[in-house]
């Protein structure tokens, strides 16, 4: 073994305690040299997260480490350590970023405390100093206004914000080894690049080693020197990143390259009938009032969605893109009547939504379905997959009893899951598997509008591709309307007919997908597109955009002004508030909320 190895894993095996013969991880050995970064890839359900959990000695109930397994951190044999020594190592020398941010945060402790608790646990800092360090760390992962953020609870954050809190927790103590399990799935490309850069910097400065678990071959290719490939719990390949990524990217099935290639296919707009929108919003705003303590009057208000007008017609797919925390999920939920609008309205099939009208909401529920961002947490933990899917079928009277139970298997097949998983509880699935169960559940209702909030964030390229094609086919063949939220612009381009770009709760650019994504006018949209990973090693020279500068909207004028890199930007941007204006002659066409974008000549 490498003398310099920071982490050495030998004969790691993990079994399910229920079915002793079921090996989740089967005799895996590898090492992680100090300062190196190694990618761990494999299909969803291959066992990647289980390796991470096993290394930390934190396998969930129901999984057990084989006694022959050896895990060595530096010179310490982790499997032989007592609880207290292990504790000292965790977080301090060995950290992990959990795959599902929502469940990994304590729901009843504000996040600032969760960070300082980690500092205090390792006696690194306490009291005021700990607060300072926690705030600083939150700022480093791109969270603004950290004082306020740190007083919030997990459920008051957006998906990407939560993920960054987890990252902050892992990076806080500058550990020797970081196991990052899909650490950037909920982050936009710019942020993703920024975070990964930071880890690279840690690697070079501190000799930190990184085990990066990801589906995103481009990211792995960009950031890792070596790649491990896991299949059904077995290590099937181990080699330099260039070779493996290149071969995988170019391989026919399940390749993201295919997705990319196909994504260029112009979206089919023939089905859409813009005159009768299925859903539309008018000046929709959702504000959250936040009080940190029990008897506090709302300390401040978050304008999560601000004056948004969007519309989706049958057969259309509206893609929503925007930075983490820009209000995408909130908009989606408000659209479905799951969030009370502060002002404005949502109209579904000609009727204005009223959240408190239970009769109306019940009638609409079947027609509007959601795949939530935290799909894993949306499954009732005590219910088996089969039960959950059968219920969805029964509730909407598509099938009952035995028929429903049978339909379950075809539903599972549609989302690429084996029928054998049907009798598992959600906790016994991998994240990607759970995500697909959530999608299957939404599809079971045969909705008219499907809202997918990051539906494929935890899926490998093959699963992702087959899912996307299935959704596209549904849209095409059955006129399914969709709202698609994703950070992966490739995915959006692949599926969306229209795109809305959100920034700080507002839509700042809107239009046909090809117009907006292929020819973005707004500087913000251009920025989003810039740092999409390529799959090739990156030169760290590329300086990522400075997020530490205040991003809060200025009191007047364009809220993007401080970060705007547009050459035409000037003082005038601060005097007037930009509204969406068409930049083409087509009245339903491309609109942009920028004062400096040139208008079409006739206007």
């Amino acid at each position, binding site marked *: 073994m490498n003398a310099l190895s920071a982490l050495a894993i030998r004969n790691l095996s993990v079994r399910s305690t229920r079915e002793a013969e079921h090996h989740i991880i089967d005799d895996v050995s590898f090492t992680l040299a100090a300062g190196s970064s190694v990618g761990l890839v494999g299909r969803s359900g291959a066992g990647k997260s289980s390796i991470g959990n096993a290394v930390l000695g934190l396998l969930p109930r129901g999984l057990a480490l084989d006694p022959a397994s050896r895990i060595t951190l530096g010179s310490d044999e982790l499997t032989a350590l007592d609880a207290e020594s292990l504790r000292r190592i965790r977080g301090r020398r060995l950290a992990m970023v959990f795959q599902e941010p929502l469940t990994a945060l304590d729901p009843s402790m504000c996040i600032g405390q969760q960070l300082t608790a980690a500092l205090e646990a390792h006696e690194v800092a306490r009291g005021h100093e700990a607060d300072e360090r926690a705030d600083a760390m939150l700022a480093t992962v791109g969270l603004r206004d950290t004082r306020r953020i740190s007083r919030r609870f997990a459920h008051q954050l957006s998906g990407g914000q939560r993920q960054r809190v987890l990252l902050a927790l892992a990076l806080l103590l500058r550990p020797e080894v970081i196991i990052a399990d899909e650490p950037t799935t909920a982050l936009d490309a710019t942020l993703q690049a920024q975070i990964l850069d930071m880890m690279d910097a840690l690697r070079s400065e501190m000799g930190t080693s990184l085990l990066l678990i990801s589906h995103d071959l481009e990211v792995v290719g960009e950031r890792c020197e070596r790649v491990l490939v896991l299949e059904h719990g077995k290590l099937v390949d181990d080699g330099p990143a260039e070779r493996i990524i290149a071969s995988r990217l170019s391989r026919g099935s399940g390749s993201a390259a295919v997705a990319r290639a196909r994504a260029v296919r112009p979206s089919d707009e023939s089905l859409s009938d813009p005159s009768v929108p299925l859903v539309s919003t008018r000046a929709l705003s959702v504000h959250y009032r936040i009080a940190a303590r029990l008897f506090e009057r709302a300390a401040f208000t978050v304008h999560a969605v601000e004056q948004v007008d969007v519309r989706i017609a049958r057969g259309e797919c509206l893609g929503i893109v925007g930075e983490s925390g820009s209000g995408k999920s909130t908009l989606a939920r408000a659209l479905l009547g799951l969030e009370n609008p502060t002002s404005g309205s949502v109209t579904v099939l000609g009727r204005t939504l009223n959240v408190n009208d*239970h009769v109306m909401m019940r009638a609409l529920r079947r027609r509007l379905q*959601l795949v939530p961002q935290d799909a894993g947490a949306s499954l009732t933990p005590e*219910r088996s997959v089969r039960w959950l899917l059968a219920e969805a079928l029964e*509730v909407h009277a598509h099938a009952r009893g035995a028929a429903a139970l049978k339909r379950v298997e075809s539903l599972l097949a549609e989302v690429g899951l084996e029928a054998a998983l049907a009798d598992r509880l959600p906790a016994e699935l991998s994240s990607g598997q759970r995500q697909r169960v959530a999608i299957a559940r939404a599809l079971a209702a045969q909705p008219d509008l499907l809202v997918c909030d990051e539906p494929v964030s935890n899926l490998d390229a093959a699963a992702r591709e087959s899912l996307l094609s299935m959704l596209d086919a549904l849209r095409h063949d059955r006129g399914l309307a969709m709202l698609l939220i994703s950070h992966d612009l490739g995915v959006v381009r692949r599926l969306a007919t229209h795109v809305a770009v959100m920034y700080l709760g507002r839509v700042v650019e809107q239009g046909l997908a090809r117009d907006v994504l292929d020819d973005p006018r707004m500087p913000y949209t251009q920025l989003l597109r810039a740092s999409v990973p390529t799959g090739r090693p990156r030169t760290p020279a590329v300086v990522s955009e400075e997020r530490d500068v205040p991003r809060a909207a200025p009191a007047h004028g364009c809220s993007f002004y401080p970060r705007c890199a547009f050459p035409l930007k000037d003082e005038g941007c601060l005097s007037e508030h930009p509204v969406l204006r068409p930049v083409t002659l087509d009245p339903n066409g491309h609109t942009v909320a920028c004062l400096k974008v040139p208008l079409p000549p006739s206007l």
Partner: protein
Amino acid sequence: MTGRKLGTPALVLGGLGLAALLAPLIAPHDPVAHLDPVLRALQAPSSAHWFGTDPYSRDVFSRLLFGARASLGIATLAVAVALTLGVVVGAAAALRGGFVDALLMRFTDAALGMPRLLLLLLVVASTGPLPAALLAAVIGGTGWMTTARLVRQETRRLLATEHVRAAAALGVPRIRLWRGHILPGLLPTLAVAATLLFASVLPVEAALSFLGLGVRAPDASWGNIILEAEGRVLRAWWLVLFPTIAIVAATLSANLLAERVGARYQRDDA
């Protein structure tokens, strides 16, 4: 975990139930017969009377067997009433929210604030002695409030979780939502509440016979066997010890059985 057998607790509870059913066959003596109230009263356990005799010289062992019928029957029924009321009120309050919630919970507060004794006294005053089934209903009807508050609290907690919100968004109707997605999460709490109810009901039955509400003389119940000791817990220990053991054994095994059945249910839900 799942392979856990229903074993001992089922055996104990089954045994108690069986003993209750077969009491006439097993009991060595007529449970109400006075053998010799002057010479054989209040005898400590011996080979002739395994559990001793009471102040009327009745055989305690036989009374215990026959008393199981009344006590277990009343306890089970009372728990069923209290649980049903508690669950319905608690769940309705949490699910409907708003005005209904306020109404039901304040009613619960009122029921808590109204001393049980006063209510029971009214019952005595207006109806006189009650048949066992009604007695159970009265005990249950005055003991549901804590369960209601628990059910409401837990339902509200679960309503705020991702998975219940997701199920609601899916369009699962409210009652079904509660049964399918909230009840499983609530079940452990409910199981605890139910066994504690069961444990609390048996003594209540005993206390009630003070008011003339209990099982009527000369019929036996575990509670009134204890009362025959008239507080002499040390001197007439056999009158206290054996029924108490019976009560504890019944509660314990009911609880363990509930736990194990619950563990099974969690797996076999499909």
